[in-house]
């Protein structure tokens, strides 16, 4: 017994959204080719015809797909090239799916049965709006990836790239980044090395001090807890330009002292300054993540360990540390990315010898526009995906360890 009544009249009313979609697509397609009216009417007419045929006559999903793919694919092949044929096949699958989704009322399947049609429409409109916002969030990052393989020195898609021709793509910007090109001066690689020296050292300092302080802060009786917390979190809140200005004066005095009185060489002093400055900036993240992990920490475990004869150092390393390790590591990753991504402070207190990757990118964006930036950006996106997955896995592990249901 079919739930949906499929008399021709009701099929016609049902096909309205499909015809509208077809007309919109046809209009856009016509606009590109300069034939708006034709595109509009052809789009509406073809989608009406196909709807009536597939849903009214054929009534068979698989067969409709086969016929439509053949139809659209041939059209694509005839009108242009193989690449556009692939596009049309994808379009065809979406189109036939849409026809059956609308005519068989599949869109109500997962919704409460008593919803009115305007509520159903709002439900899907809302999803559409959210989809657009997600698109807004992710598009800029995705656009950078293919552009980094551009064979030209442009920041835009070339016609060759849009036609998916292999000549439009190359790895030259990556070669430039690695210093393998004749005209590259190895600047990028040097900047990358500097970042890889500074970030881990800064992370080490903030994680060591930060974890100890977070453990101290999570004790039950800490005088002036709120005030101390406010001070320790402040590097995250104070605008970077103000931190950078303050540190600029402070570290230039300290640098002179280290160079002249202590006698450390200039380059080493430069690194010390930047590492210390970045360590301070990373501390709030370590404090926040580690205190969050310590919230669920069962204090009786340390008492049990002390009861069994362990001293406080053994207790810390054998009992407490393994349990809060996920929080410590994700705090460390936050601190690492903070330092790895930081540009204002390092520009103010570092000298040319400490030029980091973000600094080089900033110069590239402001002065000589070089597409190598996009290659670097792609590498950094891959890095952030790796870091994000690590942090997520650690968070789940930590929640499991502490007996919370992982969310």
């Amino acid at each position: 017994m079919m739930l949906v009544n499929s008399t021709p009249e009701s099929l016609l009313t049902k096909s309205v959204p499909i015809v509208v979609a077809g007309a919109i697509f046809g209009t856009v397609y016509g606009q590109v080719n300069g034939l708006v009216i034709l595109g509009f009417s052809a789009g509406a007419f073809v989608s009406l015809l196909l709807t009536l045929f597939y849903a009214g006559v054929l009534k068979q999903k698989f067969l409709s797909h086969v016929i439509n793919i053949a139809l659209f694919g041939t059209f694509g092949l005839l009108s242009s090239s193989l690449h556009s044929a692939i596009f049309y096949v994808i379009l065809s699958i979406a189109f036939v799916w849409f026809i059956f989704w609308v005519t068989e009322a599949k869109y109500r399947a997962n919704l409460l049965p008593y919803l009115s049609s305007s509520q159903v429409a709002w439900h899907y409109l809302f999803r559409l709006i959210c989809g657009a916002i997600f698109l807004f969030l992710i598009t800029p990052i995705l656009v950078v990836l293919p552009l980094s393989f551009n064979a030209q020195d442009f920041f835009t898609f070339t016609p060759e790239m849009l036609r998916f021709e292999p000549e439009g793509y190359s790895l030259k910007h990556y070669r430039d980044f690695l210093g393998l090109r004749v005209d590259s001066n190895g600047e990028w690689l040097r900047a990358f090395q500097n970042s890889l020296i500074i970030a881990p050292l800064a992370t080490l300092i903030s994680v060591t001090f930060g974890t100890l302080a977070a453990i101290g802060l999570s004790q039950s009786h800490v005088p002036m807890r709120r005030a101390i917390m406010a001070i320790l979190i402040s590097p995250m809140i104070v605008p970077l330009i103000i931190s950078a200005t303050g540190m600029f004066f402070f570290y230039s005095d300290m640098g002179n002292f280290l160079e002249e009185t202590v006698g450390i060489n200039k380059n080493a002093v430069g690194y010390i300054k930047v590492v210390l400055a970045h360590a301070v900036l990373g501390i709030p993240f370590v404090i926040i993540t580690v205190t969050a992990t310590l919230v669920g920490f069962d204090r009786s475990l340390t008492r049990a360990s002390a009861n069994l004869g362990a001293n406080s150092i053994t207790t810390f390393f054998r009992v407490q540390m393994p349990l809060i390790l996920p929080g410590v590591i994700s705090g460390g990753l936050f601190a690492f990315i903070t330092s790895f991504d930081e540009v204002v402070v390092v520009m103010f207190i570092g000298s040319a010898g400490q030029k980091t990757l973000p600094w080089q990118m900033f110069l590239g964006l402001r002065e000589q526009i070089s597409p190598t930036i996009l290659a670097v950006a792609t590498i950094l996106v891959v890095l952030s995906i790796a870091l994000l997955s690590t942090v997520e896995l650690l968070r789940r592990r930590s929640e499991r360890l502490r007996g919370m249901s992982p969310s």
Partner: protein
Amino acid sequence: MLDYSEKYSMEVADGTPLKKSLARSLRKEKLRALALIAPLLIFVLVTFVLPIGTMLTRSIDNSIVEEILPRTVLALEDWNEKGDELPNEMVFRSFVEDFQDAIADKNHTKIGSRLNYEVSGMSSLFRKSARKVKKWDLTDNAPIKQKLIEVNKAWGDVETWAVIKTHSVALTNGYFLNAVDMQRTPFGAQAQPENKQVLVKLFIRTLKMSLIITGMCILLGYPVAWLLANLSNRTSNLLLILVLLPFWTSLLVRTSAWKVMLQNQGVINDLLVWIGLITEGSRLEIINNQFGTIVAMTHILLPFMILPMYSVMKTIPPSYLRAAKSLGATNWTAFWRVYFPQSVPGIGAGSILVFILAIGYYITPEIVGGTDGIFISNRIAYHISSSLNWGLASALGAILLGVVLLLYWVYDKIVGIDNVKLG
């Protein structure tokens, strides 16, 4: 009759009263906690709080004039800067003596550029005069006033001396006055000439654009947070990646991505031309202006809005909405009267966070903001690295810091710093 506390006092094994023993162990615990916190606290205080504190003192510190021109400052004390009479011979003589000392120490350009912040032309006046004054012999007691005025007639100007006297105090409010488009004059604080009034406008623009960005983030973040909070855990975790990935991606990557998207030959313009909404000749100007800054910064700060909203909305039971509807509320009433009030803490937390981060932004406005999309931070950076007017930079920084700390305090009151969550 025995004292109550004596009678019932309890003792621990070694004979000390329980109360005392407990107090001692509590003190020990406190000390241990502080010992764990101390290294970090000292580190942050010394390398972060102290530098910012000393930077702030630069916004009122003005000892330079008194240091370089000590005799002049002393001699000028008796002179009336409000009148139209030039200082006497004595002042000119002390000035030339000070000036020659300063030239010998190579300090004369410093004082010149310090006074140049207040009146343009002072720097070149000092530099040019120095070449001649350097060789003068002062031992013969010949009149110097006329000689100096011959070198440059600006020395015969009452205003020049008035500027020196007005800015000779060791602690000045001059930088703060400059920061709000006013100036320190012999007649008290006065407004800057119209064409130099830029900073108040810049402050207002910074606040206005930060508000717009916060508003955009609420508008775009609310539906997404609602969707994430009401989907099954599996789906919402997958979609959360789309929020977290931009959050974890380097700020410069996102900024350069927006440069790629928005520029004249960029992706958006290309797309619009291809569709035919705009013609090749009328490509949209959407970068290097306020629009570019707002779009890019909304994108960059959006995760900071979504995450706090999401964690609040997650705690609102969906049954409340159903209950409201079953009692006869329309969809809108149920949302507005039942759901929305409960989600306000999330909006508040996210908004303050986004606003605090937005008003201090530097990198993104610098790259996509052009000239009319820049923030007060960019002006501070300009004064630190280009104009070298560090006093003004510090005064601007102090005002900005004041606003941020006020908001930080509000945030702490409303949300609590302990409740900040990441990821």
